[in-house]
């Protein structure tokens, strides 16, 4: 479903993403793990067609993201980092706007908005403007937007960021449920989340894939069977001075 080959993104002389390749099929939930500034968001922005890659190839359901972006973008639902939304719009207005851009009209649009509102528990704030929402509601509004057209591919950049423990639990459950019939890629730096929701994990550090496998496989790499030990062993904290050729855009 998603095929990424030798993806590179350079910002000036800095390589934010350096030769990343992976593929994800339907029914898989792929977790992107890595320290801050490792290139997770940049990779997702390329996969969703926001950043054009410096080199490499991305296909979504057979559509090349660079050559046929509209067809590829149609298949994707995307939650960007920090869950942006138009401050002056109401939740209802915003979701209707997104549904319309997804080509949903009339009754189909009403049903889609209703479904997304139910999935993300937004009934209470439906007619509130987005800038008055708490962080959790704002996040769920943007998540609802990504689900509105019932996409085949879901790409979620830190979907549980800023949520309280109950909401985190809900969202993880949602990701797991959606992952049964769709392709889900999500990024996080919370290790327990990976174990709770992912069928496969890719660990990125300084723009490169440094490990990949099922959560169980990765855990097996450490003598105590703990994921955070594996994580610490293969990624470098950002306080470490890096060599010039490992320079990474934060």
């Amino acid at each position: 479903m998603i095929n990424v080959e030798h993806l590179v993104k350079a910002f000036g002389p800095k390589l934010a993403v350096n030769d990343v390749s992976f593929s994800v099929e339907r029914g898989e939930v792929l977790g992107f793990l890595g320290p801050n500034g490792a290139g997770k968001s940049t990779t997702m922005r390329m996969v969703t067609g926001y950043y054009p890659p410096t080199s490499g190839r991305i296909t979504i359901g057979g559509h090349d993201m660079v050559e046929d972006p509209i067809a590829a973008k149609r298949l994707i639902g995307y939650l960007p980092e920090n869950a942006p939304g138009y401050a002056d719009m109401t939740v209802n207005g915003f979701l209707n706007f997104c549904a319309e851009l997804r080509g949903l009209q009339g009754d189909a649009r009403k049903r889609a908005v209703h479904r997304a509102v139910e999935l993300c528990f937004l009934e209470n704030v439906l007619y509130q403007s987005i800038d008055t929402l708490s962080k959790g509601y704002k996040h769920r509004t943007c998540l609802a937007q990504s689900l509105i057209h019932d996409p085949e591919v879901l790409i979620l950049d830190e979907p549980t960021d800023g949520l309280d423990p109950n909401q985190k639990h809900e969202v993880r459950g949602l990701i797991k449920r959606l992952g049964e019939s769709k392709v889900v890629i999500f990024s996080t730096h919370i290790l327990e989340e990976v174990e709770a929701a992912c069928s496969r994990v890719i660990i990125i550090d300084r723009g490169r894939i440094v490990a990949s496998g099922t959560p169980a496989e990765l855990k097996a790499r450490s003598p105590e069977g703990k994921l955070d030990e594996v994580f610490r062993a293969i990624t470098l904290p950002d306080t470490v001075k890096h060599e010039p050729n490992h320079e990474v855009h934060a």
Partner: protein
Amino acid sequence: MNAWANIRTIMKRELAGYFTSPIAYVFLVIFLLLTGFFTFTIGNFFERGEASLVSFFTWHPWLYLFLVPAAGMRLWSEERRLGTMELLLTMPVTTWQAIVGKFLASWLFLALALLLTFPVAITVNYFGDPDNGVIFAGYVGSLMLAGSYLAVSCMTSALTRNQVISFILSVMICLFLILAGYSPVTDLLTRYASPVVVEVIAAFSVMTHFEGFQRGVLDTRDVVFFGSVIGFMLFVTGVIIRNQRAG
């Protein structure tokens, strides 16, 4: 037809954005107060004793110089500041659909502001017998002028997430478009550049093209000029937005 549906959706949202915030009301009130003040007090509308709207339209290039960038400065900078640009451009819409939709929304808003000056046209018809063809041409010219300034603001707002910078840059470029054909400026330029270059720059001035409309002449060349300014500025907007993402 899909393209038009996308443009319309983006346009509707942007236009509604003006009215859900105080921007629209502040803008409309100030625009109408200032046009009234310039037309009747400074322009001596009544003392002129002629049935025309010359004293109304003469001020538009200067009035728009500040008001149009104020209406257009948020178009893309706000989108960048909120991060919604990432949302918008990962939707199945093309960059130019988004640019055109946003531009049309603001232009429509400016057209509404201009339309609300209709009492001036009624007044002049009540007191005298003006050539309404000339007045119509004046309105068309004014709308084209507003569109050109707006396209400039659209471009500068794509450059930065800071609305103040976007506003100042836009005012500067619009001022250039006014002054490019202004003799003190062209004299200064001849000292540094060849006459051909100066002539080319002078041809970019909006003033000469705007004056044609005021005389009641709907010249294709003037329409093409304003159309080209709009087209070019929106094209540059597209290039800027693409380059920002290319890194």
